[in-house]
């Protein structure tokens, strides 16, 4: 699938600010299953972004506006080709050998431990029961892929999904208390659960096909207008034999070529779309973000 991504974020300050350092994680990644055809990041006031990789391998663009300015507008235009048509298309490993496969992967790449050990307010260790429901327990005799799907089904049944909305996700305790969460919170729940099984799992942010934002056909009569597009979040599990595979508890689907990856981390705190520091008295109202992902024929 080919997509064009246009994203603009606008921030206006009530008084000028200076020494404004900004890091963004916005550009789609390049991988075996995702090719970036073009990518352009522009900044107003003008600044030349530089790029480096963080410890998770993500592309991080950075720039600095040293002089006084009262606005920051960041525009990204990118075209991507996604190729993962069928996420199930791989040679599976017998369940009895899956844990050896994971142990071997961890020995070869100790960096993966971050995705097993990390606990935070977003991905805490889970108690045996959450209110009236209990998270599925791990069955060492069954395939990991199927068990993660089972966990996703459990999340869909026990928690209501809402749109991504605000980019700052809530701690997992809020999701458990309210029973409702956006894609980030649901992804964190899946991560917290799968980490408890000792399986590497990471948080992903990215963009998804515009079709996901269109109203349900069943509900079309009530509101025909699509939801505004937002950045999306899901989880990736290191599936024995396959490598990283995306699981999206907000849709209940495995990520395929309708998902466009941008950055991975232990949880949402590792991959904010923007991180910035400035000096000055000015403050800004909330950043306005407009996102448009279109499918190219």
């Amino acid at each position, binding site marked *: 699938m080919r997509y064009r991504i246009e994203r603009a974020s606008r921030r206006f300050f009530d008084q000028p600010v200076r*020494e404004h*350092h900004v*890091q963004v994680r916005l550009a789609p990644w390049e991988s075996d299953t995702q090719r970036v055809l073009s990518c352009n990041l522009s900044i107003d006031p003008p600044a030349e972004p*530089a790029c*480096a*990789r*963080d*410890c998770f391998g993500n592309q991080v663009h*950075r720039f*600095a506006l*040293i002089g006084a300015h009262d606005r920051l507008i960041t525009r990204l235009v990118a075209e991507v080709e996604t190729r993962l048509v069928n996420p199930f298309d791989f040679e599976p490993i017998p369940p009895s050998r899956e844990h050896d496969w994971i142990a071997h992967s*961890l*020995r*070869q790449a*100790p*960096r993966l*431990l*971050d995705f097993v*050990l990390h606990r935070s307010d977003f991905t805490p260790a889970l108690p045996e029961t959450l209110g009236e429901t209990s998270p599925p327990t791990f069955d060492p005799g069954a395939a990991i892929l199927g068990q993660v799907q089972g966990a996703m089904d459990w999340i869909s049944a026990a928690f209501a999904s809402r749109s991504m909305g605000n980019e700052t996700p809530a701690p997992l305790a809020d999701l458990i208390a309210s029973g409702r969460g956006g894609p980030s919170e649901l992804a964190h729940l899946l991560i917290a659960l799968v980490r408890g099984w000792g399986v590497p799992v990471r948080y992903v942010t990215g963009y998804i096909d515009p079709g996901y934002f269109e109203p349900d056909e069943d509900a079309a009569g009530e509101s025909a207008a699509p939801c505004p597009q937002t950045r999306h979040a899901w989880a990736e599990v290191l599936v024995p034999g396959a490598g990283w595979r995306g699981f999206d508890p907000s849709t209940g689907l495995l990520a395929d070529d309708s998902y466009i990856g941008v950055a991975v981390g232990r949880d949402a705190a590792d991959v904010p779309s923007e*991180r*910035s*520091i400035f000096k000055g008295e000015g403050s800004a109202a909330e950043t306005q973000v407009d996102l448009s992902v279109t499918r190219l024929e």
Partner: protein
Amino acid sequence: MTPMRQLQSSSQTGGPPPRTVAYHEFYRDDFRPREHYLPMWEHIQRTGQSLLDTKAREAHLALHTEGVTFTVYSNQDEGIERVWPFDILPRIITAEEWHALEAGLKQRIRALNLFLKDLYHGQRILKDGVVPPELIYRGKDFRREIMDIDPPHDIYTHISGVDLIRDEQGRYLVLEDNLRTPSGVSYMIENRIVERRILPEFFHRYQVRRVEHYPALLLQALRYLSPRGAEDATIVVLTPGIFNSAYFEHTFLAKEMGVELAEGRDLVCKNDKVYLKTTRGLRRVDVIYRRVDDDFLDPLVFRPDSVLGLAGVINAWRAGNVALVNAPGSGIADDKAVYAYVPEIIRYYLGETPILQNVPTYQMTDPQDRAYVLDNLERMVVKAVAESGGYGMLMGPSSTPAQRAEFARKIGENPRNYIAQPVVQLSRHICYLDGELESRHLDLRPFIIYGEDIEVVPGGLTRVALTKGSLVVNSSQGGGSKDTWVLAE
């Protein structure tokens, strides 16, 4: 069975350990001064009590007027400044002893730097299972943000302070490595300045090696790191400001080296380069000797609420446009849980037998070690792995049952955060205290500078536990100090 486990089981089967007498650095077993102390002893006898007393008061006055102070953080969130406590009788280390120490320290620092480079790049030592990867990835001071960055000349710990103690047999043991921003070097120098002024006659009897050139050695090492070459290097000392307990030292070192003392707000990053704001415009900075902790160094990368650091400095470092001293992330190598593996780290990277031994250490992540320690807390020193300065520590023998219960709970909650060591009777030395010669326990912190080569400054900071019988030497916990003389021959 690990060496620790063997030691543990032998002490378990052998009943309570026999009472041991701490090594005395000054007296031999028959209470005669050791040979290298004889000239000093004769001199003290000739000087007499009243003159010694005058000298002690003069020393205190000199430190007071020079403004040689340190800060104790109290529970009231206020810093209390105190005059640096100093004992006029020096500690003397023979040339022979020093040679062995120097070789051991160089070996250790060389290995720890190779370890840091490996941890932040290929992680060979973790893949080979020599150091458990979980230990690193659970470590608070492992800075994944600096993965794959190449510091100039692959040096991470340009300045190290290694704490040494002597056990009951007089053997030097490493108690801990301080690889972040070890402090105390200014006191080492001030001690020497005062000692020379107050007791010049002592120095006539010995050939004492100099320590006063430390700032020159440091400056040379810092220049060596400059990306624009040593000649053009602009160097700054980055301080968190006057509220820091080591602010005295920051000003001292900047003044002695003739470089700028800066706070984060005096610097700015532009196009991955660091500049100092001066009255004549921006001036490019090549080397930052930072005395700001990793967490506060760059709000863009570490704690976003930090106002002590400099936004963008990690990117400038990554781009090779500035050197950071010590490198961020060095703290993982002096994590007290990693400490237990340093002998293995030396063998792994250098293929050599460690010259300096560690104090035996129990890992609280190991269930058997943990059970043993919890049963014997009153005989243990328990330390939080990422704390220093004597904070977050349980001194078993002098603890109350309530304190032991509190630590047992903390260990249970977060075993990775604690280690335990059997109480080692630190060596003793005579001190001139309130008109008497009394013995007190002490340790030694030599300073190691890693520039073009590794240099150990001949001397160090001798810290004294001024309270009788106490084993806690930290100045923040009521410790004092002595001048440390390394003899030339």
